[in-house]
C-alpha cells in the first residue's frame, strides 16, 4: 500500500491520540518501525492491520474513527493541499460530487502509484445522490463521509449524509442536498498555492 496512506494514518493517530498510542499500534501488529515514509510503498496488509489495531488500542468504534480520519485528511494543518486539490474537482458541491468518479484517476495523475478505491455517484430525484465506495478496506465509506462533510462546508452547501451500510467491499453513502448555497463557503483562489 502506498506510504501516503499509512503516513496519513500515522499523523492522524499521533495528532489525535499521541505518539505513545501510535507506537502501541505499531507494536501490536509487529512492526519493527514506527515511521512511514509518504513516498515509499509498503506491504498491502499493513493498512488494514493498522486500522484494526487503531480501533482496538484507542477503544472506539471503527466507523467513527474512520470518519474522523476522513475529516482529518482535509482539515488538519499540513493537509491544505489535499483540500485544495479536491476543490479543483468542481465549482460547486454538486459539481464536486460528480467529479468523485474521476478522483482515483486524478490522484494517479499526481502520484502514479497511488491507487484509491473506485467511487460511483448516482443521482436520484430531489437533489438526492448515493455514492458507492468500492474498497477492500472496511469503513472506507466512513472516511469518505468525513471528507464529504468538510467539503460540503467548504462549498457552503448544506447536505445531509448517511452511511447506508454495505457488504462485500461496497459501501454506500446517501447524500441529500438541502441547500446548495446555504452559507458563504470558503473562498477558492485558483491562482493561490497551498503552503
Amino acid at each position, binding site marked *: 500500500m502506498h506510504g501516503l496512506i499509512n503516513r496519513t494514518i500515522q499523523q492522524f493517530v499521533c495528532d489525535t491520540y499521541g505518539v505513545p498510542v501510535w507506537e502501541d499500534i505499531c507494536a501490536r501488529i509487529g512492526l519493527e518501525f514506527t515511521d512511514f515514509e*509518504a*513516498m515509499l510503498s509498503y506491504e498491502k496488509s499493513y493498512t488494514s492491520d493498522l486500522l484494526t489495531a487503531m480501533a482496538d488500542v484507542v477503544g472506539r468504534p471503527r466507523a467513527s474513527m474512520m470518519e474522523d480520519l476522513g475529516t482529518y485528511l482535509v482539515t488538519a494543518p499540513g493537509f491544505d493541499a489535499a483540500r485544495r486539490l479536491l476543490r479543483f474537482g468542481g465549482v460547486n458541491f454538486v459539481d464536486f460530487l460528480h467529479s468523485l468518479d474521476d478522483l482515483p484517476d*486524478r490522484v494517479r*495523475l*499526481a502520484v502514479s502509484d497511488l491507487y484509491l478505491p473506485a467511487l460511483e455517484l448516482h443521482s436520484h430525484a430531489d437533489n438526492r445522490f448515493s455514492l458507492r465506495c468500492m474498497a477492500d478496506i472496511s469503513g472506507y465509506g466512513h472516511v469518505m463521509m468525513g471528507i464529504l462533510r468538510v467539503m460540503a462546508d467548504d462549498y457552503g452547501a448544506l447536505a445531509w449524509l448517511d452511511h447506508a451500510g454495505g457488504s462485500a467491499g461496497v459501501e454506500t453513502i446517501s447524500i441529500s442536498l438541502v441547500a446548495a448555497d446555504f452559507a458563504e463557503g470558503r473562498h477558492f483562489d*485558483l*491562482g493561490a*498555492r497551498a503552503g
Partner: protein
Amino acid sequence: MTTSPLLSPTVLDVLCPMHVVVDATGHVTHAGPTAQKLWPYAPLEGTRFLEVFCVKRPRAISNMHDLTHAADRKLHLEIRNAERTALKGILVPFDSAGGSIIVNLGFGISVIDGVRDYALTNADFAATDLAIEMLYLVEAKTAAMEASRRLNLRLQGARVAAEEQAYTDTLTGLKNRRALDTVLTRLLSTPSQFAVMHIDLDYFKAVNDTLGHAAGDHVLQLVARIMVEETRASDTVARVGGDEFTVVLPDVHSEKTLRRIGRRIIDRMEEPIPFQGEDCRISASIGTVWVRPENAATMEEVLADADLALYASKHAGRAQQTLYTPALRAAANRVQAPQEHKGQTG
C-alpha cells in the same frame, strides 16, 4: 452584421469565453467575458484591438490589413499592460461581407500566471478547456515533488550518517583505519607538509590483564579524549589497532611543534587513570614522520617510516617520541640486511 445564428456572441461566450470580435476598422465589437477580464481598465468594446493586444509573431503585423491576412495561423500575442501577459490566438473571418474577424485567445503555458494576475476562476474557462486540469496537475505534482524531495533529503542524511559510522571507531568515537587511509591519500595527492604520529600505549596490556577489559576500554576512551584535546580540530586521530593510534597533522611547520605535541600527549597519558577505586597507569611511545613536499613518499613508505620511529622509541625505553630521520632507516637496513641474506640462503 450578417452572421449565422449558430455563431451568435452568446454561443461564442460559452464555447470560447476568451474571444473578441473585431470589425473591419479594427475596433472590438464584442468581447467574451474572460477576454474582458484581461483588460479590466475599460470595456473592450469600442477599443482598437491592436491597441490592447500586440502581435509578436508572425512579426510585423501592425494594422488591420496585415491581421486579416493572418487567418488560420497561430498568433503569439502580448497584452499591452504591465504584466505583458503572453497569449496564443487564432483568427477566423466572422462576417466575410462586413470584413469582421473573431480572434480566440488562450494562455498557453502562461496559464498559471494568467489565472493569478487576472484572478480567474473555474467559471472563466470553457468546460472543455484543460486549463483547470493543468492548474490541478501543476499543484498536485508540486506537492508530490516536495514530498519526494523531503524523502531524498532524509535518505541523504541517513547515508551521511551511515558513512560517518563506517569511518568511526565505535568504542572511542575516533576515526578508523579507513578514514585514515582517505585522509592520507588526500594529503599525498598534492605537495603538502604534514606529519604522521604513530602512538602505541605502553603497559596497556598490564591494565587489561590485571583490571579486566572494562578497565581497558575505559582507558582507551580516556586516551582517545586526550589525543583529541591535545590536537587541533583539523588533525585526524584514528584508532588503527587495539592500543595503537595514528594522528595525522596537516600544515606542520616545525619539528619543535611536533615534539611539543608528543610531549603533551605522553605527559597527560602518564597521569594515573582512576577506575573503580584502582589507578591505571600507562604511558605512550610515539614515532613521528614529518612529510614535506621535497621528501614526497607513498602512503606505505610514510607509515613504515612512522613505524620505524615508533620502534626506536620502544627500544630506547618507551614513554618517548622519536622523529624519523633517514639515518634511522639506514641503521635499520644495516641490522636487517644480514638477516635477509640469511633468510634467502637458509
